[in-house]
Every structure is written in structure tokens, then in C-alpha cells.
């Protein structure tokens, strides 16, 4: 109490002990009033929502396993734990954005591991390279969704019950509710109440008359929306899980003029979901007829891609009729539940190799892997079969290859491309012979040459034999070992074929979630009571009050509108007798208090 005296007020209060005692009394009274207020509101607001009360028992009740299970379940389905789990979910997703993920980019994971060698052990233990499928992350969201289901089911039942219930009767003291108004009228209470019912009913309130008052309620959609939103979350999770388990995703590089048919063996790489069955691959095939890419020709963003388009001939089914189709970056080709995406593109120099006898033993377009935005590309030419050296000994040939579509010019810098289009294409080759190591059974990177079992071809200085070629040029390998010709240039494009079931369901869930959320946040559930009784002087006293649960309470405004409408039907009495302020626990029949025009216009907030 003494603290009050320190408060900076304009009129300092006296230290008088009598006044202090009076204040203490006032406080006791105030506390009692506040408690009465809270009780009255609680009764009037009962079942205005299905949100669980936050009074989870602190200790396990009952004995033994059952008591504990029940305690655990109560905890898990309480709002507080839902909140904590949600927070953990947001924190738990963070590491996956800071540390590269196997699921997203394996190469980056490898690079990270090299850079942070000392952390790898810990990171692997914590599954930091697979955060989103890790045990701990799964635990968080599985617990959250168990909690969600455990929360939603009882709330749905409760809500169904509430839909059948009638709005609760008017509390005794309407003036204790957050929004309140009153006036006196000449109309009889019955007339007022009939008007009130029609008025509220006309505004689609659910009304219930009881004695001298009408109770009404509106905004059930809020609760329905909230439940729909939470259920939609479950639907989305199920759809996502379904998609992960049954999806398939494969990549394929296709040269211009070549084709692809959708069988497992045709893929360059293939990532199936846990329950995927390769028989599920829908039969279709296509050939790449043409590939267009345009790039910015000038300006600071020179070389930035502007447009990619692949023209294909598609056959649906095992032997469907061929049809012309186009695939662009943002518009995949949809065929039999799978989608074919255009991912990347590049060049494939066409190279032919002859043996010492002049016989062509190799002629192929060799795709090169782009290294930068201007399509500086690298790759390897591997001649596995058919080569015999001068002495007739069987050997393999290998070439490290670099290709630039636009060369800067001799003596002008390195083999880095200046522009992604074929303005000045140059191919550079290093030559080796020996064993390519392809027979060792180990999978090989087609873009890289393993020179561990190979020998260099050497030039006159004893150095590694290298040459730069223009299209149409031929180079002769040292000592008449054969020739290599740069015949021309082909294009290739990479496609990703994905089959992801459940995305329709996920979309439906997402739409339902937004709808439910909007209903839940923008609709208010509220109750309005009207009471009309004959006062001691024979004039009818009308009281109206409202209560809502939601925070964005437009309740006072709505009550004003309703009161004005009712007031038109039951206008104020012409005169009123002198009135006194009511005692604190005045019965509702009392005339309204009239005071000096000092109002408190604080918008009511209800939680």
C-alpha cells in the first residue's frame, strides 16, 4: 500500500493512517469485486470455445502405470506443451538451413565435411546432415501431431455438443460484462423481448428466450474454422509422408536427336521413396528434337539465360502415337501421373577417333559437364573397344576434354568461355593410353578420366600431348598412333522425371488450412443478452450486454448497432425519475445508474 505514495501524482496524497485504512478497505472490496466479475464472466462465457483450459494437473493422479499414462497424455495434449513443441519445431528446422543437407545437395555436404573435419563426428552423431529425417526432428513433429490429434478429437466432440446446446441464460449482472448498455422505455418487457428476438434472429444469431431475457450467440464458424485448420494440418502431414514414401525421382541426360524411355535402367540416377516399386513407373518415351536457349547478349548481365525450351516427341503408353510437346523451365510435361522437368543443358562435342590404320573406331557425341554460367565445360572421351596400337596390341584410349562455346582467342587468357552460345567453340584434349579401369567393376564417373593405369601420350618435348581444336579440325596422335577429329557439336538437356503421389491431397489440405485459418482469425464467436423488466415505477428497463472470446473484439460496435436497432422499436421513455447509483450487488431489476458524464471508454478485451 505504501508504494502508492511514491507514485508521481499531481495531487500528492496525505500519509494519514485513516485514509490508508480506507484505501485498504477499498482494495479488499475491489478484490472481492474483481473475483465476482471473474466468476460472472466465466459463467457467461462458458463453452464459448473448445480451447482446453490451461490447468493441466501438476502431478500424476491415481496409482501405477495407468495414472502415469494418463498424466503423460494430459501433459502432451495441453496447450502449453503444444506451444513448446511448436517452438521446438521452429528451432529444430534451423540447423538444416545452415549445414548442407544430403537430401538437398550431396556435393555440398562433402565439401562441408572437408572444411570442418573436426566437427564431422559430432555432426554425424546429431544427424545434422539429415536434419529433416533425423530421429530428433521426427520426434518433435510426431509428438506435435500426436498432441494435435489428442487435442482435436475431444475438441471436435465438444464442438458438436455445443452446436446442439442453446446459448446460456443471461448472467445476473449484465453490467459486469465487457460491453453493456441500458435505457428505459414505455414498451412492455414482452414487446421488447419479442423485438429483440426478431432482431437477433434476423442477424443470424441463435436465440433462446428464458424468463425476462433473451440469450443469443453467433460465430460458430470460428470454432469450425479452427478445427478445420488443425485437421487440415494433419491431412497435409499425411500427404507429405505419403509422397515421401511412394515418390520416385530420376535424372536423365538426353542428347539432341536421342530418346528416353521410362524404365529403371535408362536413368542416370534414380532416387525412390521407401515404399516405391519400380513396376509403378508409367510407360512412356520421348525423343529430344530440338533445344533452344537464349542468353542476354549485352549489358552487365551478359550471358544470363533468358529462355530455355526443349521440343520433344512424346509417346504415351507402351506404343502410343507420337505427339509434339514442349518443355520449359516452369512448365513441366505431365504424362501419366509423372512430371518431366527440364533441369539443365550443355554441349556435347562430336568426336571421332581412328586407329593407326585409319579405321574409324569411335564416333560419338560426348556430353560435357558445364562448370560455369558461360558453359565452360569439362568431360572425358573414353575409347573402350576396338583400338589396337601400331604393334597390334589391344589398348584403350582416354582424353581429358575441355570445351568452351566462346573462346577468348589465342593468347587471350585461359580456356574459360566468354559467352554461353556457340560463337567461337574450341575443344581442348589431353591424350592418354592404357587401361581406363572401366572393367574393374567399380562405377565410374563418365565425366572424369581415371589415369592411374594409363600412360601419357607425349609430344616432342616429352610433355603431355595436348591440342586445341576448332570444329572440323583433326589432330594426329604422336608416333602415328591414330587421329582424333572434332566433327561438330551436339546439344543435350537433362530432365528429371518425378512421380509424387499425394500432392493433390496436400494441396487440398493447404486450401482447407487457409480457409479454416481465416475463419478462425476473422470470425468472432460472441453472445448478446437482452433483458427487459418492469422497474418499480412501471417503466421498462432494457439492458443489453455482450461477451466475446476472440481478441479482435468489435463487440462494442456490434452492440451499439444492435442497441440502436432495438432502440428504434422501443424508444427511450420521455422522462425518468431521479435515480441513485445502485449498491454494489444490486439486483438487475434496479434502474441504471446515472452519474456525471465521466465515462471510461476503454475497449474491452477478452481472452
Amino acid at each position: 500500500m505504501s508504494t502508492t505514495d511514491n507514485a508521481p501524482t499531481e495531487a500528492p496524497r496525505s500519509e494519514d493512517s485513516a485514509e490508508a485504512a480506507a484505501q485498504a478497505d477499498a482494495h479488499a472490496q475491489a478484490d472481492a469485486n474483481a473475483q465476482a466479475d471473474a466468476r460472472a464472466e466465466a459463467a457467461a462465457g462458458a463453452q464459448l470455445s473448445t480451447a482446453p483450459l490451461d490447468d493441466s494437473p501438476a502431478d500424476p493422479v491415481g496409482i501405477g502405470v495407468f495414472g502415469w499414462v494418463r498424466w503423460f497424455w494430459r501433459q502432451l495434449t495441453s496447450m502449453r506443451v503444444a506451444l513448446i513443441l511448436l517452438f521446438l519445431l521452429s528451432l529444430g528446422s534451423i540447423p538444416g538451413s545452415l549445414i548442407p543437407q544430403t537430401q538437398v545437395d550431396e556435393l555440398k555436404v562433402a565439401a562441408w565435411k572437408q572444411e570442418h573435419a573436426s566437427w564431422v563426428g559430432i555432426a554425424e552423431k546429431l544427424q545434422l546432415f539429415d536434419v529433416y529425417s533425423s530421429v530428433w526432428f521426427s520426434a518433435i513433429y510426431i509428438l506435435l501431431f500426436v498432441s494435435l490429434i489428442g487435442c482435436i478429437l475431444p475438441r471436435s466432440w465438444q464442438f458438436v455438443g455445443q452446436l446442439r446446446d442453446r446459448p446460456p441464460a443471461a448472467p445476473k449482472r449484465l453490467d459486469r460484462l465487457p460491453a453493456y448498455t441500458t435505457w428505459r422505455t414505455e414498451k412492455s418487457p414482452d414487446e421488447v423481448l419479442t423485438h429483440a428476438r426478431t432482431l437477433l434472429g434476423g442477424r443470424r444469431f441463435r436465440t433462446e428466450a428464458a424468463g425476462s431475457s433473451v440469450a443469443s450467440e453467433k460465430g460458430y464458424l470460428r470454432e469450425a474454422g479452427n478445427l478445420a485448420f488443425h485437421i487440415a494440418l494433419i491431412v497435409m502431414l499425411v500427404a507429405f509422408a505419403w509422397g515421401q514414401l511412394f515418390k520416385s525421382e530420376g535424372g536423365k541426360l538426353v542428347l539432341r536427336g536421342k530418346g528416353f524411355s521410362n524404365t529403371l535402367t535408362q536413368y542416370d540416377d534414380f532416387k525412390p521413396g521407401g515404399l516405391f516399386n519400380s513396376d509403378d513407373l508409367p510407360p512412356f518415351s520421348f525423343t529430344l528434337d530440338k533445344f533452344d536457349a537464349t542468353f542476354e547478349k549485352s549489358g552487365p548481365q551478359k550471358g544470363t539465360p533468358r529462355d530455355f525450351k526443349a521440343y520433344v516427341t512424346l509417346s504415351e503408353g507402351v506404343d502410343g502415337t507420337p505427339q509434339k510437346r514442349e518443355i520449359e523451365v516452369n512448365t513441366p510435361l505431365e504424362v501419366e501421373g509423372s512430371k518431366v522437368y527440364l533441369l539443365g543443358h550443355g554441349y556435347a562435342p562430336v568426336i571421332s577417333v581412328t586407329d593407326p590404320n585409319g579405321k574409324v573406331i569411335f564416333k560419338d557425341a560426348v556430353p560435357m559437364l558445364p562448370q560455369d554460367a558461360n558453359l565452360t565445360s569439362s568431360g572425358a572421351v573414353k575409347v573402350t573397344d576396338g583400338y589396337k596400337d601400331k604393334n597390334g596390341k589391344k589398348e584403350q584410349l582416354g582424353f581429358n576434354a575441355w570445351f568452351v562455346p566462346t573462346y577468348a582467342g589465342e593468347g587471350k587468357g585461359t580456356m574459360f568461355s566468354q559467352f554461353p552460345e556457340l560463337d567461337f567453340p574450341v575443344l581442348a584434349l589431353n591424350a592418354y593410353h592404357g587401361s581406363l579401369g572401366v572393367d574393374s567393376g567399380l562405377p565410374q564417373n563418365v565425366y572424369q578420366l581415371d589415369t592411374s593405369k594409363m600412360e601419357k601420350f607425349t609430344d616432342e618435348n616429352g610433355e603431355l600431348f595436348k591440342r586445341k581444336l576448332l570444329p572440323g579440325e583433326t589432330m594426329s596422335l604422336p608416333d602415328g598412333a591414330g587421329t582424333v577429329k572434332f566433327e561438330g557439336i551436339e546439344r543435350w538437356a537433362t530432365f528429371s522425371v518425378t512421380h509424387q503421389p499425394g500432392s493433390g491431397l496436400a494441396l487440398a489440405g493447404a486450401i482447407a488450412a487457409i480457409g479454416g485459418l481465416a475463419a478462425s482469425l476473422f470470425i468472432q464467436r460472441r453472445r448478446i443478452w437482452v433483458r427487459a423488466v418492469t422497474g418499480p415505477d412501471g417503466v421498462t428497463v432494457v439492458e443489453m450486454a455482450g461477451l466475446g472470446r476472440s481478441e479482435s473484439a468489435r463487440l462494442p460496435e456490434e452492440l451499439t448497432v444492435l442497441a440502436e436497432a432495438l432502440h428504434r422499436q422501443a424508444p427511450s421513455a420521455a422522462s425518468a425519475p431521479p435515480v441513485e447509483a445502485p449498491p454494489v450487488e444490486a439486483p438487475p431489476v434496479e434502474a441504471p445508474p446515472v452519474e456525471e458524464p465521466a465515462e471510461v471508454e476503454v475497449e474491452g478485451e477478452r481472452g
Partner: protein
Amino acid sequence: MTPLAAATNENLAQISNYLVYSSMAVYTLAFLAHIAEWIFGSRSKVGRTAAALTATQAAGAGAPAVRVRATRAGGGTAVLDRPKVVTRSAAGTRDVPDGPGAAGGTEQGDLYGRIAISLTALAFLIEAAGVVARAASVQRAPWGNMYEFSLTFSTVAVGAYLALLALKKNVRWLGLILVTTVLLDLGIAVTWLYTDSDQLVPALHSYWLWIHVSTAIFCGAVFYIGAAGAVLYLFRDSYEAKLAGGGKPGRFATSVLERFPSAASLDKFSYRVNAAVFPLWTFTIIAGAIWAGDAWGRYWGWDPKEVWSFVTWVAYACYLHARATAGWKGRKAAYLALFAFACWIWNYYGVNILLNGKHSYAGI
């Protein structure tokens, strides 16, 4: 593109730059006018909050019962021409009136405040014209890189503020803070983020760009306003708590905080703003997922940008939940709102600049 068209486009880009610089000049004037408003306002010694709080204490928390205004028509009779609705706050909350605003009720302060708002509106128009000129110069949606995002971002934030003002909402207190941060945002945009106007890489060629990016920017701008409300709420709340506890806040704190709306109003403002955009943010993420499904063949792939949008979303969901749970109202909920907004900002600056993923072409 023909050379002629290229030249007009360069001209348009140049015009856009001039417009942006002009708007910055006008925002600076608005900033100065707001400062004048605050300075003149500080001359009035309002002391309302303190008075209200101590009055409440003296009379007891339950005291402000219902009061009805009555027009006394002589002879002790009252004529009520129309019913007047009275409201009261929930039991247990402070009954504090809103502060009088930056001008502190002084005429001169108010005049400067009005000048500041007019200048802000003018700067807004110029900046919006700058955005349009930029869009015309690149012949696409002006949201291809961070410079363009930042430009649109502050335009939308100011637009939202002006719209709230036009709707007669009590947001004048936001003026100085908003203008300051807009200047900051534009300053960063023109000095560090500037990118010559140009076209987009193929992955951005999609009508989803219009849908997804515009809502993302809008959400960010409005979330910013909500966050500003939450920060002020925290200051104002501790100020009120100190007063109610009998403490005496410093003179500067008193002079400034006293003029803001009450903690309860700020809290409610912040909640309403955040709650109103949350469904749109949900939509933004879903639209992004659909676009990703079209462009990259998977609708959700835990790319850094996707992760942080998700984190932001969950954090805001957390905030809304907190508000529905009794023990978490008030300050704790406000901290959550700020955490959520911090996630949004990080997703914008941090992820674009520091982490690289598939979204990185949205670069500087």
C-alpha cells in the same frame, strides 16, 4: 530487344532512380517534421498515465464500474436520446487511457505532425512512381532482386500505414519509427543492394512471381508494422508496470512513453496486425510450394529459403497460440512475435546474402 527500346528502358531506369532519391529527400523532411512534432509535444506535461494509474490504485481495481452518460434536462429528469454502449476491460488488466500522441496535445506539435504525414504521403507517391518506373524499365514485375524487393517493401509498409490512417485507426504514433526505418531500408537499398535493371532468369518467368513474391513482400511489410507495435508495447508495458508498482521512470522515458497508446492498445494492435496477415503468409508459402513444384520438380525441398519461411510461419503460429493460452499473454507473447519477425528479416537479408540455395539468384 531493339536498341531503341533498350534506350527507353535505360531512361526509365534512370527516372526510377531519380524518383527513389527524391522520395528519400521527402522522407527526410517528413522525419524532421516528426522530430519537431515530438519536441513540441514534450513541452506539454501530460502526466495522464501516471494520474490514471494512481487513481485506479486509489479507488481499487474494480472501481470503474459502468457509467452512463445522461443529459440532464432539468428537474432531475434524464432524456436518453440513444443508448450509449460502455465497455470495460477484463478483470485484472490495467485501466490506462491511451497517451495523447507525439504532439502531446500541443497545437504546434500537432501541426508539425500533420506536415510530417503529408510529406510521408507525398514521399510515398514518389516512391511508388519509382517502383512503377522500374517495373516499366524491366517490363516485368519489379521483384527480381533485393534492390527491387527493398524498394517495394518500404513502399508497401508506408502504404499500409497511410491506409490505416485513412481508416481513422490510431496509428499516428507509428510515424517517426516508420519513416526512420524506411529511410534506413532505402539507404541500404541504394548503397549496397543496387542492381542495374534487367530481365529475369528463366526460373523466374512465371505468373507465380506476381502472386508469390507480391504477397511475400506485403506480408513482410505488415509484419514489420506488427513488430514495431510489439517493441513499443514492451517499452510501454514496463513503463506502466513501473508506475503501477510505485516506481518513477526517468524523465525522458516518461516524456516519450507517456505519449504512446497504452500497453493494452499497443498489444492489441500488434496482435491484430499479425493475426490479419498470418493467413496471407500461409498462402504465400503454399503459393511458393506450388511454384517450386512447377519449377524444380518438388514442392518442398528444405532449401534454406523454404526452411526459414517455415520457421517464420511456425514462430507466428506459436505467437498466436501463446495468445490463446492464459499463461503466455502479454510480454512472453510479444517476445515470440519479435522472434518470428526476426526470422522473417533473417530470411530476407541473411538467407539471400549468406546462405546459398536455389533461391540465390534473388541476389544483390
